[in-house]
């Protein structure tokens, strides 16, 4: 029960401070889930993000469901998901009821100018922390650069990148296995 309410509260905090799409959650999830609670590792977080983009639905929600399920099974998945959507529901409803033309308010626009600067810095610092674990050799560096460039310059769906990178990963590793087996045989 304690873990369930902790999951709800952590994800509500993450949902309430995520500005600009699912990726902005990354620095906060890293802080709360990897560094503080140690419920998941940086590697697992990257896996969930990748799968969250290939499966239908909102990335932030998919990732929350994953972490919740891993931590506390089905009830955990529901708590984390409800947590991540609750702030949105409350804030948007308040705006819809009380404030018209919210997005045109000058204060809001200035605040968002500042927040965007913070989001850039926070994501940059989060991915620098993850770099060592996911870019382990030349193959992963090539995949990283190729995916980053292609997704920036084309409109291709992330699903294509993730699935082809996974297939390439399997092929490369199997080839490596075969060559190392051969070397052993040759040595004999």
């Amino acid at each position: 029960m304690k873990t369930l309410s902790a999951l709800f509260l952590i994800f509500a905090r993450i949902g309430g401070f995520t500005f600009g799409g699912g990726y902005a959650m990354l620095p906060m999830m890293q802080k709360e889930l990897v560094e503080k609670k140690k419920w998941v590792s940086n590697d697992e977080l990257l896996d969930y993000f990748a799968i969250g983009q290939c499966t239908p639905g909102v990335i932030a929600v998919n990732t929350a469901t994953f972490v919740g399920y891993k931590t506390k099974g089905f009830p955990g998945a529901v708590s984390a998901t409800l947590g991540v959507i609750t702030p949105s529901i409350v804030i948007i409803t308040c705006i819809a009821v009380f404030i018209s033309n919210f997005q045109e308010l000058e204060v809001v626009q200035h605040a968002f100018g500042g927040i965007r600067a913070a989001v850039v810095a926070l994501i940059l610092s989060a991915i620098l922390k993850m770099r060592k674990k996911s870019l382990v050799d030349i193959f992963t560096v090539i995949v990283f650069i190729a995916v980053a460039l292609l997704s920036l310059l084309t409109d291709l769906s992330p699903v294509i990148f993730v699935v082809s990178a996974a297939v390439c990963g399997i092929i490369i590793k199997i080839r490596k296995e075969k060559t190392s087996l051969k070397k052993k045989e040759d040595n004999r």
Partner: protein
Amino acid sequence: MMALLLLYGEMFVRFFLVGLFAVGGGLATLPFLVDMGEATGWFTQLDISNMVAISESTPGPLGINMATYIGFQISSEFGTLPGILGAVIAPVGVVTPSVIIILIVSKILSRFKDSKYVQYAFYGLRAASFGLIASALLSVAKIAFLGSQEVISAESVNWLCLALSVVIFTVTVKFKKVHPILLIVFAAIMGIIFKM
């Protein structure tokens, strides 16, 4: 009363379908919402562009924000209270397929997680995930520092914003304990003070 219940039912089903078919994040829901508006007459293209502006000016996942806003708008014809309930039903509709699918994927993964092929796949997949995050970072950075201008010149760069970003990045490197939320609040205040 009956009309309202029918509306809730239709809303849940339609948003469930959006959640089921929109792959790749919040903006991927956009074409589906355009279709929904045309099919039902619940909202127009202009309403949609307003919703995107509001969703981007508030915290939370884009897809959820848009669903909440639409849910309220559609059902508030019946009054504010039914509107609030509608604002809950629409986002719950969007997330339901996600929860079901992720639960199935998690079950399958935990059964095969020791398979070497699954591990090989993750070896490639992690690098791709990392690449996608890096490209998202670059697009956020472009909007933050260059605005919506297409031509890049020294005048179009928002130096104030860039400086704030550098300061915050330095803080995250030097003081590892500082919570991201604190930095976001600080940045919002700076944005208001310096009219960024």
